């Protein structure tokens, strides 16, 4: 095998297309006879439409059709699970949340469609006061969902608490968050007879294919979904949302291709969000810092029609070696859109646990790193299974050394620089990865020795194109220039959705398997082909590299892939079926410095050091970029991000990027990233685990812990805005 392809900081293989504007994203796809769609949204949160008047809209210039619940073709509510919304809008007069589509306009131009949508007149009857905030509802325990049970017990919490010398208890609130990829959700539906091609912004081609098939009653094979470049997703484009189905239905009804691009405001009510969450956590420990018990209750929002919970509790259940533990996930029904997963769903429970551990360390007068090390576990504490590998303790040491943690004075408020208070905090990063269905793959080896691999997977900016090219080059032993990796088409063997850190392990395994099969077949050909220099050499003695096959006993005896396959005279085809990927756990340690202006309460993150254990690092460049992204998301989560809901109307009041603040360049400090980079033996993707979700976890609590260290104040309600420090 080549040993220098995987891990190399290869620039993204699609780079040139992305810096020249040539990469074709969904909204860029040009289709003849295209019409534009736009939706009108409900202005109330709870009630029904009593009258809807489309005459003005229909009379507006360029309008082709205006569909309302009275005129929209009937659609079937999909049972396919990644359709999370419990209803399809524009099918009945019922209104379940503000910002629900009530009319779908199709016009010749975008401007005409937008204008006509404003002209749709709707009258409503409200059916009671809408509930928009967690505190307004009554918590209850929902039955187990597809992601497992909502309760989890280990040992006996009361007994564990009784054994503790020190106990801390704290409550945390985290507001609603939105994904806000810079690329809006977009669908272009093109029907040819009874078949449809859907250009879609999706992290899950298969989900879109199934849902469109079911909702529009089209055979699965007649739905083709294409998504070659995706402008970010962060979870929002993983499930299938109603607007996709509506765009397909409208295109079928008008008999012409329709493009629908959501507005930024639409994206606050159409594609899920991180639900507002309240958490109560109690931890007990002995004097020497052994945790005896942990008691955790989270409460998060669902709608009146569903109970799907995505702020999940894995860090509580899995991470630390805690003998007595209780975890309950409660829900409150509100008149808001359906919640969903968003980058690092485990970040909420991680935040509460890691911030509470800091409180415990302070109460114990124990170094927070030492506290975590004393409760480290090599096993998945939820099921007792050993992880393939776990180098978390080394992450603590390496990141702490790089950060200079040993120079920290633990007393709050003790570190100053000029007029500013300086605080240092740390936390554990940890997120599950994989543990989902895997991926298929197919490959053609052409007579010139070039490999073309096709997988129905996705590149959200995560580097899929690049790392899969590297895996193929590595396994086959050919230069990456001779690998063409294609994705983004449901006509290819499908992968599972790209989310939950599953693409690297799932697709990586499939690419490894298909390339291994191809390599083996070509070796067999080389040792049996008449005239081959390797003829008669035992196959197991043959290795590959640099586009060649060679005898390991005498490396000068070699032949190129091109010559072996060329000799055979025809391209070779290979295909593998999906196999499930094992559940992995990618961990790390993150250290943060903040500076706080004591007069204004202004917090700046000024330094971050993280060290991570993702198994094998497939590409140091793209992996580092994913860490930067996660850390910066953590800064946004902790300091700025907040979707505000008006409690009187259950309407979102800041559905835009000037009211919903995400980090900008000037908010971002010096960030240093290290990797352990040792293969996980449990992974078939050359030792790589899924990793994308990990770096956002931990950093949120590390910031809050650093703010406590700087100021002596515990702010347990996010975001940590200036007013809360004054």
């Amino acid at each position, binding site marked *: 095998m080549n040993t220098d392809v995987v891990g190399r900081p290869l*620039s*993204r293989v*699609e*780079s040139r297309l*992305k*810096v*020249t*504007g*040539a*990469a*074709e*994203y969904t*909204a*860029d796809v*040009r289709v003849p006879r295209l019409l534009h769609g736009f939706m009108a949204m409900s202005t109330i949160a709870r009630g029904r439409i009593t009258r809807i*008047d489309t*005459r*003005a809209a*229909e*009379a*507006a*210039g360029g309008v*082709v059709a*205006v*569909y309302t619940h009275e*005129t929209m073709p009937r659609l079937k509510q999909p049972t396919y699970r990644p359709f999370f919304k419990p209803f399809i809008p524009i099918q009945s007069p019922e209104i379940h949340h503000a910002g629900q589509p009530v009319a779908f306009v199709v016009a010749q*131009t975008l*401007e005409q469609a937008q*204008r006509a949508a404003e*002209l749709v007149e709707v009258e409503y009857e409200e059916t009671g006061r809408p509930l928009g905030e967690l505190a307004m509802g009554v918590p209850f325990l929902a039955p187990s969902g597809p992601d497992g049970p909502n309760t989890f017990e280990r040992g006996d919490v009361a007994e564990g608490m009784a054994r503790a010398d020190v106990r801390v208890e704290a409550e945390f609130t985290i507001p609603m968050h939105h*994904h*806000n*990829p*810079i*690329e809006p959700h977009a669908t272009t539906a093109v029907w040819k007879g009874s078949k449809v091609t859907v250009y879609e912004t999706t992290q899950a081609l298969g989900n879109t294919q199934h849902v469109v098939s079911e909702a529009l009653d089209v055979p699965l094979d007649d739905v083709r979904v294409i998504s070659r*470049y995706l*402008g*970010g997703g962060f979870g929002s484009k993983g499930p299938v949302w109603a607007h996709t189905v509506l765009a397909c239905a409208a295109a079928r009804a008008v008999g012409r291709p329709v493009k629908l*691009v959501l507005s*930024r405001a639409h994206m606050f009510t159409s594609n899920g969000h991180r639900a507002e969450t309240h958490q109560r956590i109690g931890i007990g420990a002995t004097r020497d810092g052994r945790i005896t018990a942990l008691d955790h209750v989270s409460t998060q929002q669902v709608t009146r029609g569903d109970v799907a919970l995505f702020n999940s509790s894995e860090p509580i259940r899995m991470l630390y070696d805690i003998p007595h533990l209780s975890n309950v996930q409660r829900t409150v029904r509100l008149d808001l859109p359906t919640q969903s997963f968003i980058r690092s769903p485990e970040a909420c429970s991680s935040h509460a646990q890691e911030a509470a551990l800091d409180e415990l360390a302070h109460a114990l007068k124990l170094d927070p790193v030492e506290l975590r090390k004393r409760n480290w576990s090599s096993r998945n504490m939820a099921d007792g299974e050993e992880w393939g590998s776990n180098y978390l303790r080394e992450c603590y040491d390496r990141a702490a050394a790089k950060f200079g943690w040993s120079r920290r004075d633990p007393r709050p408020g003790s570190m100053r620089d000029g007029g500013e208070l300086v605080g240092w905090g740390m936390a554990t990063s940890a997120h599950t990865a994989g543990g989902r269905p895997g991926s298929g793959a197919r490959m053609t080896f052409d007579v010139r020795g070039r490999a073309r691999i096709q997988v129905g997977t996705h590149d*959200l*900016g995560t*580097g899929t194109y690049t790392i899969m090219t590297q895996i193929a080059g590595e396994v086959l032993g050919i230069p990456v220039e001779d690998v063409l990796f294609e994705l983004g088409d449901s006509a290819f063997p499908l992968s599972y959705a790209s989310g939950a850190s599953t693409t690297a392990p799932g697709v990586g395994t499939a690419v490894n398997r298909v390339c291994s099969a191809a390599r083996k077949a070509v070796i067999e050909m080389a040792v049996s082909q008449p005239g081959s220099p390797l003829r008669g050499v035992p196959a197991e003695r043959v290795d590959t590299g640099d586009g060649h096959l060679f005898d390991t006993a005498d490396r000068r005896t070699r032949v190129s892939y091109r010559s072996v396959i060329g000799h055979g005279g025809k391209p070779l085809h290979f295909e593998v079926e999906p196999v499930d990927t094992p559940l992995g756990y990618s961990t790390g340690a993150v250290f943060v410095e903040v500076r706080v202006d004591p007069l204004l309460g202004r917090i700046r993150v000024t330094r971050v050091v993280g060290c991570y254990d993702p198994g094998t690092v497939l590409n140091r460049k*793209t992996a580092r*970029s*994913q860490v*930067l*992204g996660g*850390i*910066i998301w953590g800064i946004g989560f902790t300091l700025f991000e907040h979707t505000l809901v008006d409690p009187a109307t259950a309407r979102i009041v800041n559905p*835009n*990027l*000037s009211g919903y603040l*995400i*980090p*900008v*360049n*000037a908010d*971002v400090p010096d*960030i240093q990233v290290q990797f352990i980079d040792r293969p996980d033996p449990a992974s078939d993707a050359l030792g790589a685990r899924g990793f994308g979700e990990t770096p956002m976890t931990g950093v949120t609590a590390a910031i809050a812990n650093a703010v406590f260290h700087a100021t002596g104040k515990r702010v347990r309600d996010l975001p940590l805005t200036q007013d809360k420090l004054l």
Partner: protein
Amino acid sequence: MPEHSRRNVLKSGGAAAAAVMAPLPDGPRPVTAPHQVRQAAQPKAVTDLTLEVNGERHRLEGVEARVTLLDALRERAGLTGAKKGCDRGECGACTVLADGRRIKACLTLAVMQDGRSITTVEGLARGERLHPVQEAFIRRDAFQCGICTPGQIMSAVACIEEGHTGSEDEIREWMSGNLCRCSCYPNIVDAVADAAKAVR
């Protein structure tokens, strides 16, 4: 050239439309049969205009006054390099150069740019040779999904031209009008600093 702003053009367009719209005929309940309905709200302000984009003349005919430069480029001139992230001046994905200055193409109307010279990301490379900013973005991995990248790159070209690359902090400040949700900011700063050196 008359002084148009997006605000006053949209206002007058809106008012005209509303005036035509007001006396709606009392008809039967809404049905979707547009061809039977009187065309009432056709905005009047339609114009032909010429944009010089990336050195090429683009004659755009029958463009409504309310069409932004961004939508004119994307939907009419077939140049989809500039991206739409928000359509209200918040994200910078639509940044282009107009007579050499960086502007947000969603915040200006196409008619307001009639006759101006526009540069989009498609116009930076010289044949096969990438612009130093493009090269630096690749080398430094200054993008992930790439959707903000056309805007970041155009902004970076202008930022260097404006002389706002004296320090990392200065670059951070002057590149803060371009959001990147993938959060490639540190790499963008490195790329801009690199390119500033190469351009000098």
